C-alpha cells in the first residue's frame, strides 16, 4: 500500500488499544512484513510500509523479566511489579504484573488482562501455584490516560 495511505490513518486517540470482549491488546500488524506494535502506528517500523492492520494480539505471552519497584509514584503504591512481556505472535510490551508472588519463577507464561482504561499481566497458574486471584489488589489508575 502506498505510504500516502498513512496520511489518512485514524488519529491516535481514535485507535483502539484493547478488545474488552476478547480480553486482549489491540495493536498494529503490518500486512506486508508481519511486524507488530502496540499501540498501533501509522507506518510499520520494520519495513516502512503503510498497510498496517488493526487487530487483537494473543492473550498469552511470556514474562521475560520483571522487577519489584520499591519507590512509590502518584497513584502507584510501592512495591509494585513491572515486567517485560513477549506477547505470543505480537510485540514486546512492558506493563504491571499482578499476582506474581515469586519473582524468581521468571521467565514464565502470563495472561494479558485488560479493562476499559488499562492493561496488566498475571502469571498463568502452574502446578505449584494457586488457581484463583484471591488477595490481588487492583492498582489505582489515577494517572492512566
Amino acid at each position, binding site marked *: 500500500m502506498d505510504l500516502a495511505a498513512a496520511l489518512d490513518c485514524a488519529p491516535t486517540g481514535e485507535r483502539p488499544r484493547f478488545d474488552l470482549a476478547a480480553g486482549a491488546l489491540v495493536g498494529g500488524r503490518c500486512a506486508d512484513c508481519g511486524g507488530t506494535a502496540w499501540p498501533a502506528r501509522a507506518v510499520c517500523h520494520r519495513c516502512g510500509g503503510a498497510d498496517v492492520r488493526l487487530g487483537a494480539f494473543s492473550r498469552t505471552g511470556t514474562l521475560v523479566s520483571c*522487577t519489584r*519497584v*520499591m519507590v512509590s509514584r502518584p497513584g502507584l503504591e510501592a512495591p509494585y511489579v*513491572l515486567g517485560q512481556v513477549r506477547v505470543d505472535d505480537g*510485540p514486546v510490551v512492558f506493563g504491571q504484573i499482578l499476582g506474581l508472588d515469586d519473582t524468581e519463577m521468571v521467565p514464565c507464561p502470563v495472561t494479558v488482562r485488560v479493562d476499559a482504561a*488499562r492493561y496488566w499481566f498475571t502469571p498463568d497458574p502452574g502446578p505449584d501455584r494457586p488457581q484463583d486471584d484471591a488477595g490481588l489488589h487492583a492498582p489505582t*489508575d489515577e494517572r492512566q490516560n
Partner: protein
Amino acid sequence: MAEDVVVAGVGMHPFGRYPDRSLKDLARVAGLRALLDAGIGPRRVRMVYSSNAMAGMLQGQEMVRGQTVLREIGIEGVPVVNVENACAGGSTAFAQAVMAIRSGAADVVLALGFEKMFVADRSRTLDALESAADLDVVAGLGIQFTAVYGLRLRLRLADGSITRRDLAEVSVKSHANGARNPYAQHQVTVTAEQVLESRCIADPLTLLMCSSICDGAAAVVLARSGVLSQPGRPTVRVLASASGSGFTLDPAGGPSGATLCAERAYEQAGVGPGDVNVAEVHDAMAPAELLYSEALGFCPPGDGARFFRSGATALDGRLPINPSGGLASRGHPVGATGLAQLAELTWQLRGEAGERQVRRPRIALAQNSGGWLEGESAAVNVHLLERMEPWI
C-alpha cells in the same frame, strides 16, 4: 577524510547538590573553565550547542535555555542551538559541534550541558525523568529508570551470567573511583556489604548502585585542528562520532542500540574495541557497566561479569571503565552527563586526571544513552577520542 576536530578545552562545575546556585551559576563555572582551558575568550566562540533536559519542567525555562545562561558569560550573537536528548543530551551537543566543524560552518564551537535536578518537590524531578519515554504509551505504568535497569539485570541474574555479588562489587569499584574525583557527587568508598544492605530501589538494584538526583554542568570547546595553538600540551582529537536513536524491540532479539552505534564509531575510526584504553560508559546504575562491556565489544556477549571480575576494568586494569566514578558516583545531572564523560576522557588522555589517572591511554571511548522506548534507549552516542602525541 573529514576535517580533523580537536578537543581544545574542557571544564566542569562539580556535580552534587547546590541549592544556592542557579542554572546560570552552574553553566558559568563549567563554560568559563572550558574557555580558560582552551586559552580563549567568549568572543572566539563561533557557535554553541547547549544541552539541558529538565529546566522546562523544573525551572519553568522551557525555551531558549542556552541563550539565557550563555549571556552570563559574554556569549551572544552567535548561533545557539538548544539540544534535548534526555540523558544523552550532552553527547548529542558534542556530536553536533563535531559536525558543525567538519562541515566548515564554524571553527570553534562550545558544547555546554547544565542541569539542576534538586528542587523543593522531589516528585517533580521524578515526573521529569519519567517523561524521557513515550508517555502516550507508558504513562501511569510507573516505569522509572531504576526499573528499566532492574529489568535488564534480572534477565542476567536469571541466566546466571551475573550474580548479585557482581552488582555490588562493580558499585564498590565505581565508588572507589568517584572518591578520587574532586568533581564527583559521591566522593566516598563503600563495601560490597554496604551496597547489598542499602535500601532496595527496584530489585535487584539497591540505593548505592544507583545514580541520584544531581546538579551540575560540563562544557567542551571543540576546534578545527590547528586553529587554536596549545604548545606544550598533548592534543586530543575526535577519532569518531556516531549517533543513533531507539527502535522497536524485535521479539526475536537482536543487537542493542549501543552495539550498533559503537560498531559505526569503530568503523569510522578504523579501530576495534581491543584498541580502546579507557572508557566512560552510561552506568546510570553502576551494574550497567557489566552490560555495556559486552554491548561495546570489550568482551564477548555474556562475559561482562567475568571481564569485570578479572580486574580488567579497574583503574590499573587493561581497560579501565568509568575512572571518573561513572554516573552512579560522579553524578548524573542529565543534560551535563555526556560532556562530563568527554571531559574526563580528555583529562585522562592528557595525563591530567590526578589520583584517578589511568596508565598512558591513547584511545578513549565515551558511550552516553538517553531516554527509553519500551526496551531500547531513545538516544545513543558513541565517541572515540585519541591522544595524538606519544607518551614520554
